[in-house]
């Protein structure tokens, strides 16, 4: 990969950033919607079923049908609910998921052609907000996203919602420590919080991937990522068999849909983080172009989440706390200490 001199790049204008934000919002929402289709389809295949088949060829238009359903459904606010918080909570989940994506390099740079009126010649950057604390910002935003389920569960005057939000608090307190500590060791090695620096650190091909240097941190990050996105071994917040739908019990229509979009956007963010921090980022791999290989890596991590959901049972809240506090956190601390010693010697 050729090293691009930063000074050569055109100036990033506010118009370009706004265009980028709209692109991220539109495309990631669409991919999140498509993710629900993929999830249903892959889970079905793993259970030897067909999944959605009737809307469009192979059920491809199922997203459109679901969208129409969500938008036209009656929007119910329970009588005793705290109406303001009840209405704000889904927006927190969806918004923080997309704000986290602002610091993630999503698509390559491009310049809008000159012949397009009004916006012609605007440079659209690959990262909407190229801040030098990228990883920290993303993790912080994803952690703030947990306020969505927490407030939603407490505002809806429903006992299942209360249990769901209590579990949110438990989960948040458990995994967040592990996420931070697991990612600390790679940060020490790279010496930067910028995702671009992480990518450049792994330029040496397959053997230079961070997951070979930091296998423990990689596994810990994956486990914490599953907890962060409420995916199956740790989907305590809304497990139907136990707490009806947890924090989402009283939600219907598009408010519920916003929780869903937020969850899938978070899945994409975690996939991007795993791909860029641990799996070599968007460097070329052999003859495969960088943009393609990063898409394949992100798709693999996304697939892994669905695969695990089809395979493993989920655990109890106390088991999650036990796992995070008594196993994963000590392992992460030991990993950080060993990394520090190796770096000094």
């Amino acid at each position, binding site marked *: 990969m050729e090293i691009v001199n930063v000074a050569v790049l055109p100036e990033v204008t506010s118009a370009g950033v706004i265009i980028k934000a709209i692109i991220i919002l539109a495309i990631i929402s669409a991919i999140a919607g498509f993710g629900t289709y993929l999830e249903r389809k892959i889970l079905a*295949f*793993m259970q030897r079923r067909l999944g959605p088949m009737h809307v469009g060829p192979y059920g491809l238009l199922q997203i459109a049908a679901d969208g129409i359903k969500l938008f036209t459904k009656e929007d119910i606010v329970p009588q005793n609910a705290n109406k303001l918080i009840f209405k704000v909570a889904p927006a927190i989940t969806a918004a923080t998921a997309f704000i986290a994506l602002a610091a993630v390099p999503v698509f390559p740079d491009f310049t809008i052609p000159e012949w397009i009126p009004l916006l012609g010649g605007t440079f659209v950057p690959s990262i909407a907000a190229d801040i030098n604390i990228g990883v920290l910002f993303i993790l912080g935003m994803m952690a703030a996203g947990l306020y969505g389920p927490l407030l939603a569960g407490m505002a809806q005057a429903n006992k299942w919602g209360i249990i769901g939000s209590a579990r949110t608090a438990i989960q948040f307190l458990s995994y967040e420590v592990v996420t931070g500590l697991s990612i600390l060791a790679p940060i020490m090695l790279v010496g930067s919080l910028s995702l671009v620096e992480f990518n450049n650190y792994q330029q040496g091909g397959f053997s230079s991937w961070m997951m070979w240097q930091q296998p423990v941190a990689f596994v810990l990050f994956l486990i914490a990522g599953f907890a962060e996105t409420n995916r199956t071994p740790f989907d305590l917040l809304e497990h139907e068999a136990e707490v009806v739908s947890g924090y989402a019990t009283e939600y219907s229509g598009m408010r519920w849909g916003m929780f869903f979009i937020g969850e899938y956007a978070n899945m994409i963010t975690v996939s991007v983080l795993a791909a860029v921090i641990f799996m070599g980022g968007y460097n070329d791999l052999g003859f495969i172009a960088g943009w393609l290989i990063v898409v394949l890596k992100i798709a693999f991590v996304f697939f892994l989440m669905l*695969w695990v959901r089809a395979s493993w049972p989920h655990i109890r809240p106390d088991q999650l706390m036990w796992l995070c506090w008594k196993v994963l956190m000590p392992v992460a601390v030991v990993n950080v200490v060993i990394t520090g010693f190796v770096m000094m010697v």
Partner: protein
Amino acid sequence: MSLEQFKNRNVGSQTYKMIESEPTPESGMGRFGQVVKRTFKGELFVGLYVTMREMINALFIGEMHTVKYPLEKLPISPRYRAIHDMLRLLESGHYRCIGCGLCEKICISDCIKMDTRYDENQRKEVSEYTINFGRCIFCGYCAEVCPELAIVHGGRYENASEQRAGFSLFEDMLTPIDALKDQKEFDGFGAVTPNADNAIKKTPLAY
């Protein structure tokens, strides 16, 4: 999917595997050892392997188990007892029913009603014959008792309706005359046993 799977009545225990579970560890060190053992045993990856194997088998080897029901149907057993059929004699095409009334008599849910009269040749003919499928419990006694194998159970099991009472007339259940060559003998309740020919003895006329 073939009929053999339906005919196998001995489902279950023959494929069971007993899992040897270890005793619950008593001491703290024992519990720690169990955690370490489970962590490095890789059983979670066996789970991942199983689901991936099922997906590959379903997608590429054709072990998908979905039957798209209104478009595809599973084969049903020949002994299945669904809506009745009235069969015809293969030689003449006349219906087999001789109007004996045994099915009406034996029907335990009292759903068969029939009426007979003599026709111009002084043969008994069926003038009225209805089965109330709102009452019928598909027990199969009518087919079993029928001396002529005239009333049998067919394979039409999709009998949902908007009304509780649903009647079927003789003509509706009778094999259409142009479909006579497709008429199949009923294998189930009341049918002739497979070795019926060997069991027949000559009528004793000697005395």
